[in-house]
């Protein structure tokens, strides 16, 4: 921005922003960094809440006949307990409610906001060398819509109906009738879920438009597409996924909302009968399959919306800490673009059991197998990037390195599920749960933890404590596996994912009978308490992180300079923490993002922003200023 320009417009924001009152600076903020932090902290709180719901469920699975222990039940009021627990035990309804909300909260309110919105907001504009997002006020609106949507959903826990109970997928017609007894359907948990979803979808839509516009139009001078850090590429693809995949879910939500509130029959076949209401007085003629198609058209790209930001964080951390360029940057970029495209045409592999027909199943089986190719390229490139590096095993690097095999397990266990025939057996078992939790929890979450530890110094000016970091990392790594690995075993033995008592009720009925299925359940049911133990230990392992996260703001080791890792990408060229407007000099990118250990350059890194020395003829082509 030139001096003339600001004089011309008569109001110079630059001079005033330090005097902004607290609420404008930190609450109604339009600064991408503050919004990123808001997103991050809110998402971490939602993650903690989702984790808590999971602990209640895990208790119910391991000890279905016992009252919840005091350390889980203290949070509920006496009246809430009387309504939702039976003699202190978790009931099927309550388990369903917690299950549905655990999924929803973790996916829509936890990981996506943390990965895409928080990291994306904070890091992207810095990495492409611009002052802010393209539409800062829209950015603020995104955050507030997200918060309102999340709170709307969670408020329903305290309503007469309780929160949504039909699984995070909310399949119709089950979800159409859920809470059907509630007179004012707008105050039913299921409807609240849909309304909350409309807010969340609007939020991600605005976010996606904002990110994409920023990446397309606001890159700094010389920041060509192929000089963009891989992180930004991942954000670009994620943005497109959100932009194009969410609207069909919005359609599904609107239709289900219509079915629930005005009595339409979009998802209700003719002649439907329920035990509660007899033959439903509705027109019928609708299609439950339509809901599933609309849902999974979002649902599958959503998986990559979760995953790509985590891969992005890891891909940034590996080159910094191995001191060598990211291996195969270009193939990775192409892989991620192809991955994004393919993710739109694999959705029905979630629907093999719906009876949509073998021809369609075969097509989706093929595309699903295809999509593993770019995924493997990404993972392999990152593993090869480690080869021959002088690796600094600081805390972010630990998480990043652990991400690789953990995500690998998650990905590879997905392959059998891609095949129609195998899926017939494994569908809706704990194998599926184990598979996608390996992707999301030790996979994606590890990547995001890596990101938090990595960029924390840029955000606060202080490092997070290393000892507490180790205390967080090692138990998390161990107990993630204690929690999730047995799920794969149980799943293959036929444990169903919706057994709120972990197979116990099934077993007590089958006891003494020669039922083969019952016997396999008996063999593996002992894993339930072990997994529950793993979950509770995992909760304990997050305490050091919590302490570390808040305390290090005040007492963490101060960073030595603005670029403590000797990194090359532009976010390290700013003052710490970056001020409103980010850069203090006219920033430009003179070379690719990962110029480490170049032989023709002294020192082991060559930052993007460093101007080529004049006495040596520059090897790089002169930057083409975008403007």
């Amino acid at each position, binding site marked *: 921005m030139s001096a003339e320009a600001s004089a011309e*417009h008569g109001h110079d*924001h630059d001079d005033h922003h330090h005097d902004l009152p607290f609420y404008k600076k930190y609450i109604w903020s339009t600064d991408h960094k503050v919004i990123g932090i808001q997103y991050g902290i809110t998402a971490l709180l939602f993650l903690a809440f989702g984790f808590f719901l999971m602990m209640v469920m895990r208790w119910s699975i391991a000890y279905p006949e016992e009252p919840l222990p005091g350390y889980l039940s203290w949070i509920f009021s006496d009246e809430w307990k009387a309504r939702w627990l039976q003699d202190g035990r978790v009931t099927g309804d309550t388990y369903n409610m917690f299950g549905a909300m655990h999924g929803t909260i973790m996916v829509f309110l936890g990981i996506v906001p943390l990965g895409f919105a928080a990291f994306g907001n904070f890091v992207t504009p810095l990495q492409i060398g611009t002052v802010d997002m393209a539409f800062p006020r829209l950015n603020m609106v995104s955050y507030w819509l997200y918060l309102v949507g999340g709170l709307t959903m969670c408020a329903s826990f305290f309503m007469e109906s309780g929160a949504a109970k039909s699984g995070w997928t909310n399949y119709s017609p089950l979800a159409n009738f859920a809470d059907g007894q509630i007179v004012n359907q707008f105050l039913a948990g299921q409807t609240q879920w849909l309304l909350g979803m409309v807010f969340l979808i609007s939020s991600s839509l605005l976010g996606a438009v904002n990110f994409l516009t920023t990446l397309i139009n606001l890159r700094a001078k010389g920041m060509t597409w192929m000089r963009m850090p891989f992180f930004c590429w991942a954000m670009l693809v994620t943005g497109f996924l959100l932009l194009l995949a969410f609207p069909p879910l919005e359609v599904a939500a609107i239709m289900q909302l219509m079915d629930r509130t005005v009595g339409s*029959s979009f998802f209700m076949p003719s002649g439907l009968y329920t035990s509660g209401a007899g033959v439903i*007085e509705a027109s019928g003629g609708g299609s439950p399959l339509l809901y599933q198609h609309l849902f999974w058209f979002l649902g599958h790209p959503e998986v990559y919306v979760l995953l790509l930001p985590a891969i992005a964080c890891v891909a940034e951390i590996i080159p910094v800490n191995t001191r060598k360029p990211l291996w195969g940057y270009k193939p990775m970029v192409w892989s991620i673009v192809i991955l994004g495209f393919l993710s739109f045409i694999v959705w029905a592999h979630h629907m093999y059991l719906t009876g949509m027909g073998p021809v369609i199943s075969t097509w989706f089986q093929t595309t699903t197998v295809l999509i593993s190719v770019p995924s493997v390229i990404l993972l392999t490139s990152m593993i090869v990037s480690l080869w021959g590096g002088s690796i600094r095993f600081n805390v972010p690097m630990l998480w990043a390195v652990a991400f690789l095999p953990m995500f690998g397990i998650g990905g590879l266990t997905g392959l059998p599920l891609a095949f129609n025939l195998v899926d017939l057996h494994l569908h809706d078992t704990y194998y599926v749960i184990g598979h996608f939790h390996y992707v999301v929890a030790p996979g994606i979450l590890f990547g995001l933890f890596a990101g938090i530890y990595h960029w924390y110094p840029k955000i606060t000016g202080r490092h997070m404590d290393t000892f507490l970091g180790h205390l967080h990392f090692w138990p998390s790594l161990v107990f993630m596996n204690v929690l999730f690995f047995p799920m794969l075993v149980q799943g293959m033995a036929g444990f169903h994912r919706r057994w709120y008592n972990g197979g116990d009720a099934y077993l007590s009925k089958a006891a003494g009978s020669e039922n083969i299925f019952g016997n396999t359940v008996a063999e593996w049911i002992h894993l339930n308490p072990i997994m529950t133990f793993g979950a509770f230990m995992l909760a304990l392992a997050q305490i050091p992180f919590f302490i570390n996260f808040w305390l290090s703001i005040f007492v963490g080791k101060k960073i030595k300079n603005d670029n403590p890792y000797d990194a090359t990408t532009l976010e390290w060229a700013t003052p710490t923490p970056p001020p409103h407007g980010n850069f203090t000099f006219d920033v430009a990118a003179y070379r690719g993002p990962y110029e480490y250990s170049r032989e023709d350059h002294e020192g082991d890194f060559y930052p993007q922003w460093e101007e080529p020395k004049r006495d040596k003829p520059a090897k790089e082509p002169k930057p083409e200023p975008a403007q």
Partner: protein
Amino acid sequence: MEIPYTVTARKDTGLFNSKVGIWLFLASEVMLFGGLFSGYVFLRIYADYPWPERALPIVPGLINTFVLIGSSVTVVFAWAALKMREWRRFQIFMGITIACAGMFMVLKGIEYKAKWEHQAVRMDDFAIIEGHAHYGAVMENGEVDHFHTKLEAKKAGGGKPFKTNKILFRPATIDFSVVRAHEPWIAEMLEQAGKRKSKLVTSGDVFFYGHIEDYSGTESDPLTGKDRAKQEAKIVKEFGKAEENLARKFGKNSLYIPAGTPLDYGLIKKARKAYIAGRAHNAETRTAILKENWRRVKEILPEKEYWEQAPVAKIDAATQLDEQFDDQGNCVSGSKVVSLVSTLSFRMDPPQPLVIKRSWIKRPVKAKDGKAELRDDTTLSAGDDQDQGAGLLASPVALSVDAIDFRWMAQKAEEAGKEPMEVIEQSWIFSKDNKHHGDYEQIWKVHKKRIGELEQELADKYGKDAEGKPKRVPTETDRYRVTWQDLVHYARAKKDSLMPGDAGFDELRPKFWDGFAGPNHKDEEIHKLHAFPELEVPHHKVSMQSMFTPKWNTYYAIYFTLTGLHGLHVIGGAIVLGYFLFFSKGLYRRNPEWLANRVEIGGLFWHFVDLVWIFLFPILYLM
């Protein structure tokens, strides 16, 4: 700090920020409407009922199409005017654009209103009757009658007139769930009872036990087994004086409601509070018992499997919940659990008809059940007074019929391998049970004759194929659906004593621009000709009824969803364009190019809205 490229375009992309933004946004809008259009295709392909083809009046839709196209042109002119810095011209063209948006919404509103007033009934034999519902009124003496208009009903009856698609029930008792009873419904029932000089009072004494904190079951406790009944009796006797003692003796929030207390929502709310307190007390007590049981089971049976321990740990209702007394009648163990009352029962005195909306009903009401269950767990029951006229009253859907549709019935007949015409002629509407059957037989006679003529005409015009079958035949819709145009046509012919085939018969048919948004029941001529005959469909023949709202079938559901969302886009777009017109003079003075940019992206959005309508019009109105 200034965001670059808000006004000027970036060189390598050639776009300013908001233009990139709007194209991305429109891409996502394409996915939104794409999803809905896919939904339309899916629903239409898989529909198991005759999809209503060309069911909507075309004229308003056609006008709206041109209105929107016109506004898309004027919004471009408005943008061009800004580019040329002609504020006045901009104002004019933008004004026209917004006026077009307004006109579009007005026409849409007229269409919507017509559908909201149009009643449809699906009978249990799949005949579909369309028309305008009559209005009913409950007379002073409790009799029910119905009338053509609201005004007539108002003049004749005591209570509020109601559309005859409601259910009339004369309850002897009404049971309310204390937790779930819905306040507005109670108010409505009280209002109706009051109008008909009837009262709702509790049928018996009720005790609610609240949250008892100190219930040790010792000698000093007033609630030992034998005493409880005594205590209750004492409180009943001293009621009024003893209310304070209630809380002490029966726990916090406990409540005594004597017989004959009149219904009001406050009473239910108090009962709810007591119930919830009692429930919390019970839950706490039982949880403590179960925890203790498990502790002991794990001590005595440590080796057993979990599912073998569970039955042992289970609360034993006989020993752990029932009161155990010693010789002196003192409670020694168990029964820290209070008994819960979850419904409050009221007598209706004397029983009078209540008008109940169908949306209140939990499951279909049948006369033989003698009760009606509402969605808030309220139960209206006839009780023993059934002989004295309590219970479900005749609740026919009475209407002036403007269309009769046998297509679904014909489809069902064909599926069952029967001759459709025969099945149709045996349907209820032509039977002696229908007191208006004469009207309908007459209409059907004319209709059949006319279709016969049409069949002949088509055969003559298009000839026969190799197998001797006519190349063209009347459509299913022609054959099995008697439209409002048909009804008017036949009524006019009847007046002139013309039959199909007679000269001048065809000229009597209404023209396509008649009835702008469908049949007009207020039309003088139609009224005089009595073109839309009356019908009373008895309650037990109605398998489904609705206005022409999303509820009626999936076609109307997708119609309202698509056009409703499109309408919201029109309104949203008009608000944004209106903002540019009325509140942007300042920006125009300061930075006219910026305003031009804004109008450009507003215009792009407006074009998209127009484009959506261009797809909507044919798929909803023409196909």
